């Protein structure tokens, strides 16, 4: 089963390497890792999308906890969470097809962010499945390049658990 883990880590050099190294070494599967600042100075939030049965997920969390730089781990599958990813995609589109592509993009609340003589760049955000669907619709026009950020996520509303003080 797919799980999204939100991992609060010390913003130390190599912390991403430590986490990625651990997951790789223990043969855990990684779909994506994204990392950036968190609400607290000195801490980063890493969002890891991974796959595994219950036992594997328990091991992933326990092994991550052994890293000194890992402060807190939340499995967002246990909460209602907002999950987003940013997609940039460059598709082939000359003057004749530009309008068509714009039409496809619109219902996805995506936008055209760059126009070249033979291509368009589209920016979209959303859940992974939505972005996958958009890519499929654009495929017939010729996909030139794709860049995705990987998933980031936060639990909804009251689900936010503060970092325990002094722990």
């Amino acid at each position, binding site marked *: 089963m797919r799980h999204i883990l939100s991992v609060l880590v010390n913003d130390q050099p190599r912390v991403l*390497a430590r986490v990625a190294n651990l997951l790789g070494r223990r043969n855990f599967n990684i779909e994506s890792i994204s990392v950036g600042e968190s609400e607290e100075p000195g801490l980063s939030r890493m969002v890891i999308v991974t796959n595994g049965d219950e036992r594997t997920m328990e091991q992933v969390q326990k092994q991550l906890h052994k890293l*000194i730089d890992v402060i807190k781990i939340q499995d967002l599958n246990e909460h209602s969470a907002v999950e987003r990813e940013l997609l940039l995609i460059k598709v082939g589109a000359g003057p004749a097809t530009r309008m068509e592509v714009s039409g496809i993009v619109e219902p996805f609340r995506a936008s055209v962010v760059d126009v070249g003589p033979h291509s368009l760049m589209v920016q979209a955000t959303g859940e992974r499945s939505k972005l996958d669907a958009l890519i499929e619709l654009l495929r017939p026009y010729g996909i030139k390049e794709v860049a995705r950020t990987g998933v980031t996520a936060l639990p909804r509303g009251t689900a936010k658990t503060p970092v325990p003080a002094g*722990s």
Partner: protein
Amino acid sequence: MAQRLAMPVKEKTQTGQSHQEFTGSEILLRCLIEEGVEVVFGYPGGAVLPIYDSLYHGALKHLLARHEQGAIHAADGYARATGKAGVVIATSGPGATNLVTGIANAQMDSIPLVCITGNVAQHLIGTDAFQEADITGITMPITKHSYLVTDVKDLPRVVKESFYIATSGRPGPVLIDIPKDVSNARAAYRYPDRVHIRGYQPKTDPHPLQVNRLHQAIREAEKPLILAGGGVVTSGAEKELIAFAEKAHIPVTTTLMGLGGFPGQHPLWLGMPGMHGTYAANNALLECDLLIGIGARFDDRVTMGRLDKFATGAKIVHIDIDPAEIGKNVDTYIPLVGDVKQSLSAALDTVPRAHSDIWVERVQTWFREKPFTFRDSDEVLKPQWVIRHLYESTGGDAVVTTDVGQHQMWVAQYFPFARPRSFITSGGLGTMGFGFPAALGAQLAHPDATVISVTGDGGFQMTSQELAVASLANIPVKVAVINNQCLGMVRQWQEVFYKKRYSEVDLADSPDFVKLAESYGVKAWKAENKEEAARVWSEALSHPGPAVVDFRVAPEENVYPMVAPGSGLDEMIMGEEDE
């Protein structure tokens, strides 16, 4: 030895307050002394010149190994003998990479080490500078934690944290990489008196609810068994374990790492389980209805990786300080996360007595009637006899280190250890070359103890250069080379699993170990039969300095019983009986 710290002092008065400044390497030295470090093992080089310069005053005892691997194994042996962190220093690049095996070895067996490496100056890091190696990167998977110090002001905190992390919770090696410019930079020195690491709070006391469940499970059990591992030794829980096992009336099997954690003379002891374990321990594992794992990790030399044949009828209780061990290899019915000593203490007062009389009698009969066996000889020296003789000649009152291979298993089988930390072996990584330098470390920790390094003719040659250290520092380790003129354990596998196609296991052209030892100034003897063996061994024991005895043993001897990889514990190949 207790010389005064004669260190340069620089006054600083900007703040109106005068305080001394020290170089990074002086600060490091002060931190180590503050931590109560008695001895460091190491090897100098360019990037640690400032550190070695600060050692010049002799304020801290330093042992110059002949290879960084020797230094780190010695530090490891010191740590295993004492429970304190072992400290090793190596230079950048090749010095640091020579530590890698020793770091992995310590990590696998949860041994506290603080490994200090020099690195090139920070402006050179990342440029493939001379003797640059990314040692924090290289050792990331084999350290409990690591630091690359970028500011001399961080050094005291880093050292304090390193010792704390290395020795607390589930212990392990911590690496501190110090670029040369940091060693040379100056700062005021103040050693922190507390550590606060937000992401690191090992849980040591067990949950009372789980303790109650454990009691209930014992109450219901008729065939309970304790599987005690290295965690018992690490947490110093031997007394609690004895009391617990006696009160609950539960037999105990100790893993390789757990040997000595429960006395090998105790009537409830069943010996070691697993690949080369006792019939009693393995059968008890097959048949028990309650299995209490205590500071043991259910690794594949115990379970044989055949969980379908491992304690299948048992409820499994797992007591361990590392939550990640619980449920990693076996499904756990009752998890008890906590320090072993604290957990057993918490469980001890009200632990019920299991209804285990019939069972205990049965397993004791197995233990009595199916001991380890070998066919003894008066013509040739049998390795098993030698190990038994080491035991009898010392009354078991010795610290014994082993290397890796057949002799290691024979020590585990024929030398019943009575005390924790008296058996020192490379369990998890199985590192040849470990045993002899580890014995040097153990002897430094216990100058008055009899320390025996039982080693193979193969493994001894991996770190025998440390004879120089034994000789120069007069460290009176007794080396018992179990010389079967081959890589015995590999030869055994080739015999049993590869139709005797002996491939690259012949060591008949090894150097003469007596001459080798003598060339280092170490006294040495050779023994080819029982009579000689007994005589020269007693000479070696009474010799005040280091000694080597080359026991020429029968080369074709195998370690039995044996469970072949892929087989279950029910498929033990038993050894030959004595006639």
